[in-house]
Each structure stands twice: as C-alpha cells, then as structure tokens.
C-alpha cells in the first residue's frame, strides 16, 4: 500500500536509507541548531524529538515532525528577534538616537519600540534588519532617510 501523505506520521523505527545500518526513530538530543525563517542557527529545544538515525545522525522530517519542529522553533525565533532588536536599540541609544525619532522615521506607532524592549511586542524581521542597518553610522543613515522622505 502506498500512502501519498502520511498525516498520522511514520510507524517508527524505520531502517535508515542513508547508511543502511541504523534505525530512524524520534530522538531528543542537546546541542542541536538549525535554520528557521531568516535565522541560521537557532537552538533546537533539547527535549524536542526529531526522527533521527541512530547510526549516521540523518534527520527525517515527515509532516508531524515538521509541525513539531516549527512549533518549537517559533518562540525561540521570536525571542531571538526581540534580543537582536533590543541590542540594536541599545546601540542606537548610545549614539543618542531617540526612540521617538526612530518610530517616526520607520512609520511605527509611538511607544512601539519600548514594547519590543520590554517583550510586550514581537518585531518583524524587516524591522530588526532596518535597526541593524541603522546602527552602522546612524546619524548619516537617518539623515539620508529623512532627506529621501522629504524629497518624495
């Protein structure tokens, strides 16, 4: 019988096709990192079980595993974005760039950046990217943005 989509998942363990020696079964392990959305090296929760070969270490991602990995990584991803945004905002504050000025230039509602710093809001990856770019020579870049908007 061939199943196009095994929504209920695989009946583990399965012999590994990669090495032909090990068995693949859901496995939890510390020290794993992976790409998720725009971030390249997010830490995978130690207790998250991912189908993995016990001989070669190859991971097998079926639908339930994909959903579990994505669900586990999303809060890690949001936390990392908040950390990055807060770090960039701190750097900008050290260079005397006010949050009010940033909120006005980036089209954000007043107080939004404070919410991000306090963990009450999650920044978009685009906002984090913009903040990161602004930390490099911020006064010049902010002036360029202000001038481009003024000329528009």
């Amino acid at each position, binding site marked *: 019988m061939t199943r196009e989509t095994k929504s209920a998942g*695989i009946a583990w363990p*399965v012999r590994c*096709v*990669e090495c*032909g020696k090990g068995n693949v079964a859901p496995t939890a392990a510390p020290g794993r990192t992976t790409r*998720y959305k725009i971030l390249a090296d997010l830490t995978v929760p130690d207790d998250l079980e991912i189908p993995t070969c016990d001989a070669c270490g190859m991971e097998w*991602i079926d*639908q339930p595993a*994909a959903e579990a990995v994505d669900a586990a990584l999303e809060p890690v991803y949001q936390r990392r974005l908040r950390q990055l945004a807060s770090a960039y905002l701190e750097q900008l504050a050290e260079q005397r760039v006010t949050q009010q000025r940033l909120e006005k230039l980036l089209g954000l509602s007043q107080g939004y950046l404070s919410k991000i710093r306090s963990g009450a809001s999650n920044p978009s990856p685009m906002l984090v990217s913009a903040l990161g770019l602004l930390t490099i020579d911020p006064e010049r870049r902010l002036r360029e943005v202000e001038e481009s908007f003024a000329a528009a």
Partner: protein
Amino acid sequence: MVLMRTVYDVFSTRVEALRWVRGVIADLRPADFAHTVELEVHVADVYGFVVGDNGWYLKLTMTEDADGSFVLVISCHPLQYPLSTQGGRISP
C-alpha cells in the same frame, strides 16, 4: 512523504518545505527523470527540473514502515552541477 537532505535556507519553515516538495513531486513529468542511483540498500531516482531561472535536483525513493510504503525524498536542492534529464540538459 519524508524529507531528508533538503536545503532549509531556501524555505522559511519545515512545513513550507514539505508543502513545496510535495507540489514538485505531483508535477514531475517523465521528461524530468535523469537516472537511477544505487544506495546502500535501496535504489533511488534522480530528477531535474527548473523553477524560475534555477535548476533543481531531486532524489527520491520508496521505503517502508510497519504500515506500508511511503515516499522518501533523499535530496532536494538547487542544482550544483549541470544535470542531463530525459527532456534535456539542466543548468544550475
């Protein structure tokens, strides 16, 4: 369907990767077939196809669990080298 070696930096999430590869497999044509390769305990089929301006490489096989057989996608990533398929040569 199960994904093994897939370039996750091309996709936003694992679920998106699965959905995309499932769509690719549904759209495969005989002309996309390149060749068969022997693995440790299986044989696998290699396909090449083009998405936009980019050639892609797909290697899949069938394997089994206790409930029956399923598609195992061994590799799915942008082409690194030109690939000859039944329909012609595909470039990275």
